[in-house]
């Protein structure tokens, strides 16, 4: 053991003596070492038996396949690595073996925030799995690889635990034995025996954690993907808009946990109001050409959503 590691070990020893709530999380299991371990830690299927309807709604949403996407996301992450990270002179990545969690976080911050609870091996396993999936011809193998990518998602515990508490100095740090919602008390699930309160879960700021405001400045290389929350805050609210994301996407739409956009009929109906008006008139151009009929079509499109259309 070098002196450096020793000092870290010693500090660790001291810290454990302090009854500090910030450290409570670090006493929970260490980093996940494989995709399977990470997926198991955030598995949603165990919630299904009691929350069946919500599970089925969620299953249909893009949150349930946030790494695979439509499936555009997984291949785009590979492009970001090949055409981006590997070409940047200071990223420290020349080949797949150099990829770490930190590198993938510039997408995973929102597409898979729990990746920060995994080792660098998992980051490399993700890249290898997506690459294998992109190359695979055999249907059965393709399906298995796709299932593996899909097992990494924004599941129940990402929203109801990991990202549930935003103002942590006021509301505390999320605990691994607790699901967060609107109630405090006992929870029937033996793996998560407690229910805790997530004060902002019903507010736009909750979705804003991933739905973007602009460049992600906290990253060494700020990526920019979704910026829809920025539009909500700085365009919709100033116009007097006062509905939350949850109001439109979960309640008014009737879709609950199946949060959708233009692919769903319910959302399309709520998106735009259009007015079409046409009139004609006659232009006396000149003697030679005479009277020319002209058409004028006016189209008015009113954006009824809570943000720009489209995003990104």
């Amino acid at each position, binding site marked *: 053991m070098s002196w450096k590691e020793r000092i870290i070990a010693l500090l660790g020893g001291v810290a454990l003596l302090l009854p500090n709530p910030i450290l409570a999380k670090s006493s929970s299991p260490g980093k996940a070492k494989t995709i399977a371990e990470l997926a198991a830690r955030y598995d949603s299927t165990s919630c299904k038996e009691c929350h069946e309807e919500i599970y089925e709604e969620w299953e249909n949403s893009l949150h349930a396949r946030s790494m695979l996407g439509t499936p555009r996301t997984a291949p785009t992450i590979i492009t970001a690595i090949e055409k981006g990270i590997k070409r940047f002179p200071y990223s420290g990545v020349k080949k797949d073996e150099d990829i770490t969690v930190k590198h993938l976080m510039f997408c995973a911050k929102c597409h898979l925030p729990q990746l920060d609870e995994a080792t660098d091996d998992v980051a490399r396993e993700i890249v290898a799995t997506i690459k294998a999936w992109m190359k695979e011809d055999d249907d059965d193998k393709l399906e298995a690889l796709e299932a593996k990518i899909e097992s990494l998602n924004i599941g129940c515990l990402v929203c109801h635990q990991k990202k549930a508490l935003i103002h942590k100095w006021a509301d505390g740090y999320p605990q691994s034995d607790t699901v967060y919602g609107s109630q405090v008390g006992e929870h029937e699930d033996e793996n998560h025996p407690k229910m805790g309160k997530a004060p902002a879960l019903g507010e736009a700021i909750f979705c804003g954690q991933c739905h973007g405001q602009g460049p992600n400045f906290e990253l060494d290389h700020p990526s*920019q993907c979704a910026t829809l929350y920025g539009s909500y805050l700085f365009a919709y609210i100033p116009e007097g808009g006062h509905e939350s994301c949850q109001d439109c996407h979960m309640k008014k739409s009737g879709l609950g946990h199946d949060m959708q956009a233009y692919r769903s009929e319910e959302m399309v109906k709520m998106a735009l109001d259009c007015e079409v008006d046409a009139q004609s008139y006659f232009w006396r151009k000149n003697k030679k050409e005479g009277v020319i009929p002209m058409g004028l079509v006016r189209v008015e499109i009113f954006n009824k959503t809570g943000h720009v259309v489209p995003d990104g």
Partner: protein
Amino acid sequence: MTAKDENGKVLYSNEKEYLEIGLDVDGYMRYGAWQIKELLDLTLQPLKVQEENYLFVLPKKIKEANVSVSVYYKISGKKKDLLYEEVKKFPIVQE
């Protein structure tokens, strides 16, 4: 937006796109989340009305035109989903 005559012949057609254009610092258009540094915002803004006027010459002797307006959501050029469609007939009468 398309205007057709009674027989379905296209008299006029035009298209407008609303989108965000990602740019890098040198002003090149970029699509990747790892490349975008600036935006040109040509999207439909919330709670705002976007007005378009299309003015065009009609053939002489025409009596009626069918105007159809469709709004699509497009992803990467190929795929498009219909958001809104309206077809209106309007008469063209010369006094």
